[in-house]
């Protein structure tokens, strides 16, 4: 018996040391190239669809398998990130504020889009809702934890309306469209491509995220990377940013072709795709480095202020246990990859 144990341990030790030797002769860092990258993209209308459709990321990274995963909303994306199921993701400002405050290991690397009327509050025409006050006693839906949930509660707070005076339901965008079709909802604040389905079935737009931006509540989606990935493969983060920037440029320079791509990716009519595109504002990568957006590595821009404001609000809603300082949110924003790509 002892003999056998001895043999086993010797073989084990032998193979282990052989493996260590192998690993030492081929240092991983020198070849830093991921086998596969996973990009989680949000189910909404922005240039990530163009990047995906044209295979721009793949072009930047020959030999690397690129997988795209469609994620319904910010809450789901946050879970995917917490579970380390994606390398790159996209998050709206409320989920970002939650993730950063809870110290998720992520860095914000670029602006994916600014949200205009691609996100809007649709109200049932026969419910006769003309102001936020008319929502009292009505059933309102929004995906909890997302940009629109945040704007809804913020708008109610500004008007001094108690959210408990109405029924606010947590539904995902596609569930909102289904529930809307059945007539279960009076109002819903969510985004394209599902928003349009509600508008076409007896709804009209009452408020848009673009109007809320003018009131001082900008909402946006930021591209994030897992810290562990960025540390291991910094050049690949740069390649990713370069590809997404190319997608944004394509969007700005070829609106007609982009509309075709959007229509194809989301199974929409060309006409609808063209209109939805106008509701999302794409920011050219060079402009992203100005003070309104990411800012520069030395001087982080307005996105940090939005995060401070958003998390303050979430703390008041008891969705977040504590508030961080501006410099903590600055640390999350890392424009260095953008700076390298733009130069």
């Amino acid at each position, binding site marked *: 018996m002892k003999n056998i144990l001895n043999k086993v341990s010797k073989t084990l030790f032998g193979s282990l040391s052989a493996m260590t030797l192998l690993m030492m002769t081929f240092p991983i860092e020198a070849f830093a190239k991921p086998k596969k990258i996973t990009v989680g993209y949000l189910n909404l209308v922005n240039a990530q669809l163009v990047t995906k459709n044209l295979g721009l990321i793949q072009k930047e990274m020959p030999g690397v398998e690129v997988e795209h995963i469609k994620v319904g909303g910010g809450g789901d994306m946050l879970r995917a990130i917490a579970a380390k199921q994606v390398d790159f993701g996209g998050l709206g400002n409320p989920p970002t504020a939650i993730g950063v405050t809870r110290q998720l290991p992520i860095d914000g690397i670029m602006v994916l889009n600014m949200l205009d009327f691609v996100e809007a509050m649709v109200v049932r025409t026969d419910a006769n809702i003309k102001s936020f006050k008319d929502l009292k006693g009505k059933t309102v839906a929004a995906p909890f934890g997302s940009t629109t949930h945040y704007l809804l509660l913020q708008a109610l707070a500004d008007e001094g309306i108690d959210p408990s005076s109405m029924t606010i339901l947590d539904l995902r965008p596609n569930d909102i469209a289904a*529930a809307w079709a059945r007539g279960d909802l009076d109002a819903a604040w969510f985004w394209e491509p599902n928003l349009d389905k509600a508008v076409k079935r007896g709804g009209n737009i009452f408020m848009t995220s673009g109007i809320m931006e003018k009131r001082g509540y900008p909402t946006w989606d930021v591209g994030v990377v897992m810290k562990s990935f960025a540390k291991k493969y910094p050049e690949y983060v740069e390649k990713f940013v370069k590809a997404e920037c190319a997608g944004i440029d394509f969007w700005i320079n070829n609106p007609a072709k982009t509309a075709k791509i959007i229509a194809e990716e989301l199974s929409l009519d060309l006409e609808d795709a063209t209109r939805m595109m106008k509701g999302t504002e794409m920011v050219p990568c060079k402009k992203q480095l100005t003070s309104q957006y990411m800012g520069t590595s030395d001087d982080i821009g307005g996105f940090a202020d939005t995060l401070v404001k958003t998390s303050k609000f979430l703390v008041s809603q*008891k969705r977040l246990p504590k508030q961080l300082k501006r410099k903590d949110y600055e640390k999350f924003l890392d424009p260095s990859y953008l700076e390298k790509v733009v130069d």
Partner: protein
Amino acid sequence: MNNNQIKNKRNIKRFIPPFMRKKTFAYSMLTVNILFITWVVVTETGLADELFLPGPLKIWQSFIEVSTEGYQGNTLFVHVFTSVNRILAAFIMACIVGIPMGVLMGASKIARALLNPLIEFYRPLPPLGLYTLLVMWLGIGEESKLALLFLAALPGLIIATIQAVQNIDPVYLRVAKGLGASKKTILFNVYLPAAGPTILAGMRISLGFTYTVLVAAEIVAASAGIGWMIWDAAKFLLSDVVIMGLIVLGLTGIGLDIFMRFIGRILMPWTRYLGP
């Protein structure tokens, strides 16, 4: 040891429920304790990321907070009460439909042939897949939630009842018939008493399965319920609330099971089939 001491000991023993006096209970407690100590060690030494696994103290604090101040407008009691209500309502409906259906299918080959395709088809469907359709048909209110729980409870009940009825010793039936018993007498005095224990065991399993579907049922458009609370807290990465909710969910499940066994003992005192 004098008489008084022995008497005292007996008195104390009387307050300990019978199952706790057994040796096996001590072993069960050992597992629980080891788990708990591992939890404490892993969190105290910083081996586990606090974001994903907070320590027991944190969970206790969140328990107190949610019990007193509530989570998003409802206290823990309301959340548990809402969920247990949903479960019991759906389960009782399933019993009312499922047990007679099972007796019928067990006793009559024709009934079995007629109803089997229906049950065998939907039984293996994953609840969430079914749920999308239920939401489209019944809306986002209570109806779709109850329907999902009802459909989860039904097949287990029917299958257990069929088996219970089929396993009845035919001698009982022959004797009853030979003595001139009416159909009604046979149903109440032969079928039900003989099949009862197996049906009850089926009810226990079915209730357990219904319970596992709870979180799924509360994902869509709920604003109260323990399953919803867990789902919502996960969205905001409130892992203390998530873990606390799961513990409460588990304990409530055990509570429901004990309740079922208690009912069994009252309804069918002639059997010890249900076991520990």
